[in-house]
């Protein structure tokens, strides 16, 4: 029997999981359209590589990973690109973001997939590259590109933790995935272990999921996996938080701002392991995921849904009931309200709760804080939420940072137990984003100051050098004069202002001529390829300009 550790605090909210975990995962019907955001992951947005009107196949790359930290986006089914424009996305801000709208053709025709019988024949960098190209990101909610997390110096990481705890109420997608596809998850875990050079794999599952635990244990035995333990952990929220699960399984506490890999642990969601395996073994990019549909619906259950499926079309398959006010993505503790019911499912969508006033009553009016410290008693980060609230409310951001605001994982346990019904987490979110904005502004101001000072000193230097040159010239001239005084005085320079004006005027005329000729500069002798490239760039420029115009009402 393995020794398990505890973390401070935690709560026991009603789990509400039985509604949706009784039925197997169903395939979702092909939706009428797919709205696929290009920014579904941590890092840079993917760059669109298709055009409106283009026909694409299932699994075809439609957004290319851009820069170091980014991930690719793929067509979830075959069909025609209807638009590449800004649409509402699954983000609490309600601000539109660039999306690709795909109208399915109903054929669901795959692009040629590159399967791989034996991943051990591939180098680690090849594997990581494939994962990046397949758009595999963390499916536990953080959507961090997985290839970035699967990098390790040899022997540095001892333990790979697979997170199947699923502590949030209502959500059962990982539960069902583990019950039905345990073998694939474990294959993915083996691959991740190899990439990390990790010794052991610990799979933490909360003990309220006996079926999943049994299925995973059976799969470990059947697959002959060595040094791989399926561990039942106590059911307590937020026991499924990466930091909390690592603590429970290994006793290691990973502080905020510290990488767990520095302490010898790496953690992945079970769904991520599954997707990574499908990407390598079958060449299937991440175009679908398991989504729990629950709440105010007649048949709560899990669907394998295509990324981009409009949420209302998915919820309709569970028969949405009357009184549904809006949708919540995620669980009741950390989920975010959706700006619209039509937004597309993204890689982070583990659950959609159809909310109604009966399920989630309107928040009660908050009383003042009475410093009862029930929040501090349940805080898994061992913070003093009442102090953070005090400082956040007063917008005393420095103090809030001093009291470790950024160690807060926003689990919501404090708000849950608050007898005064204060939306504590909301205050922390507010304070955090204010601090980020302030720091960004400060950084920009410092950079501007530095550049300005550099410019000033450069101008100063140039002036000095000019003066020195002039002085030297004058001295030389005087010396020459002394030798040959008969020579006529040096012709004064033409008035510099006038010359500049003249030059500018000529330039303007020149530009006008060129504009009349409608011929861009430096484009006389071009190969057809170059011309095509230029046209492409021009088109993109025009599109961005259009977007900028739409986004910024003047």
């Amino acid at each position: 029997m393995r020794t398990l550790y505890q973390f401070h605090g935690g709560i026991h909210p009603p789990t509400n999981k039985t509604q949706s975990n009784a039925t197997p995962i169903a395939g979702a019907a092909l939706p009428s359209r797919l709205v696929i955001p290009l920014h579904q992951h941590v890092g840079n947005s993917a760059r669109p590589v298709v055009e409106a009107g283009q026909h694409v196949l299932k699994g075809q790359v439609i957004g290319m990973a851009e820069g170091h930290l980014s991930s690719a986006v793929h067509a979830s089914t075959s069909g025609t690109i209807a638009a590449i424009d800004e649409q509402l996305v699954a983000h609490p801000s309600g601000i539109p973001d660039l999306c690709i709208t795909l109208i399915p053709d109903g054929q669901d025709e795959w692009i040629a997939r590159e399967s791989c019988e034996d991943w051990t024949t591939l180098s680690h960098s090849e594997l990581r590259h494939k994962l990046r190209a397949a758009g595999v990101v963390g499916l536990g909610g953080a959507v961090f590109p997985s290839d970035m997390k699967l990098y390790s110096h040899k022997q540095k990481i001892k333990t790979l933790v697979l997170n199947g705890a699923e502590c949030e109420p209502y959500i059962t997608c990982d539960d069902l995935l583990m019950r039905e596809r345990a073998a694939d998850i474990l294959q993915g875990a083996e691959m991740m272990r190899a990439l990390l050079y990790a010794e052991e794999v610990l799979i933490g599952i909360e003990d309220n999921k006996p079926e999943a635990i049994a299925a995973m244990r059976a799969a470990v035995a059947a697959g002959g996996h060595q040094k791989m333990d399926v561990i039942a952990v106590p059911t307590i929220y937020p026991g499924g938080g990466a930091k909390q699960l690592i603590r429970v399984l290994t006793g290691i506490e990973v502080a905020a701002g510290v990488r767990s890999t520095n302490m010898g642990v790496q953690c992945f969601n079970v769904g991520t392991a599954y997707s990574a395996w499908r990407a390598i073994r079958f060449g299937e990019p991440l175009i679908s995921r398991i989504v729990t549909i629950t709440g105010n619906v007649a048949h709560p259950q899990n669907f394998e849904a295509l990324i981009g499926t409009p949420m209302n079309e998915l919820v309709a398959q569970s028969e949405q009931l009357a009184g549904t006010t809006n949708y919540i993505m995620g669980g009741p503790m950390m989920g975010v309200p959706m700006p619209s019911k039509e937004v597309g499912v993204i890689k982070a969508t583990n659950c959609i709760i159809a909310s109604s006033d009966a399920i989630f009553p309107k928040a009660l009016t908050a009383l003042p804080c009475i410093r009862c410290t029930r929040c501090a008693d349940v805080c898994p980060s061992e913070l003093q939420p009442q102090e953070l609230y005090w400082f956040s409310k007063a917008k005393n951001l420095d103090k809030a940072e001093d009291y470790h605001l950024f160690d807060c994982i926003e689990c919501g346990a404090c708000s849950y137990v608050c007898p005064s019904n204060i939306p504590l987490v909301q205050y922390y979110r507010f304070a955090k984003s204010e601090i980020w904005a302030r720091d960004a502004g400060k950084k920009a101001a410092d950079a501007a100051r530095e550049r300005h000072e550099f410019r000033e000193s450069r101008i100063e230097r140039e002036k000095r050098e000019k003066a020195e040159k002039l002085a030297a010239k004058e001295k030389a001239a005087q010396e020459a004069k002394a030798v040959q005084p008969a020579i006529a005085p040096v012709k004064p320079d033409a008035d510099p202002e006038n010359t500049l004006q003249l030059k500018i005027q000529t330039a303007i005329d020149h530009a006008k001529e060129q504009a009349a000729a409608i011929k861009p500069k430096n484009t006389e002798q071009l190969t057809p390829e170059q011309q095509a490239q230029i046209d492409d760039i021009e088109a993109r420029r025009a599109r961005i300009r259009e977007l900028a115009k739409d986004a910024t009402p003047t």
Partner: protein
Amino acid sequence: MSGFFSPFITKPVSVSRIMLNVLLALVPGIALYVWFYGPAILISLTLASITALGVEALMLKIQNKPVAFFLKDNTALLTAWLLALSIPPLAPWWLVVVGTAFAISISKHLYGGLGNNPFNPAMIGYAVLIISFPVHMTHWLTPNGLGEIAFSFTDQLNYIFREVLPGDVKLDAVTMATPLDTLKTQLHLNGSISDILDMPIYGHLAGIGSEWVAAGFLLGGLYLLAQRIISWHLPVAYLGTLFFIAALFHLVDPTHYVQPGFHLFSGAAMLGAFFILTDPVTSPTTPRGKIFFAMGAALLTYLIRTFGGFPDGMAFATLLMNICVPLIDAWTQPKVFGKKEKQS
């Protein structure tokens, strides 16, 4: 009105329910009070409650805060009860009203109302009364069976509201000094502890009757602990420290320093440990801070009782420690998750 943010679910706890539980926990002590001293205490409890609610409503109205919303939180009621339980039951009606009104208006609402008062309102009310009306604050009833004459409920009512006594009765005949006060006076007269405790007003541990009332508060306090409404840190540290200091003095000089048990079951020690120090608004929030706070309060209580000018030190000890709360909190911030070894 707050927005629609996560978490969308909350535990069904409320300030109102917590305070109601605290009021409930006071009931055993009050019942024993009535048993030993007659129903006069019920009159001051009622008077204080009505005054508290009235003044609270008025203060809320003046500040344009929702009246019904705040009245429901039961905090004013708790302040009223704690104050009423701290002053003599035979105190005239205006004394109760003035004390309660001061506690609610000045020490609670002028500091910003619920959650913002640095001092325990009930103790402020008590301090004001004992400084302004020291004589009236000594009218403690003699426990049943000790008094020379029967003092009926109507007589008590008459005294509280009209300050008249039945023809031939003198006030001294129905009231007496508290056991703590008597102890102090007798010690000044060079009595020894063992002689003093032989006096008829003392029972098993402390004063006859009052020791049982204290036991009633202890019972209520245990209920609050079991309900997890208060944390163990404050009462345990307070009673433990008081016991320890008293035991130390008693061991050194048993003729002049009374047994530790006497201290625990006398005066407001038990009520204070479970109901007054534990007021969340005016006590520290960190576990270590709570312990320091309670230890300081216990030390001050003992010093005031033994060497100070007042027979009981609970109220002043609480108020003095209330001043230190922001400092204690700042000094006792616990280490956060993952940062335990790194700092320090």
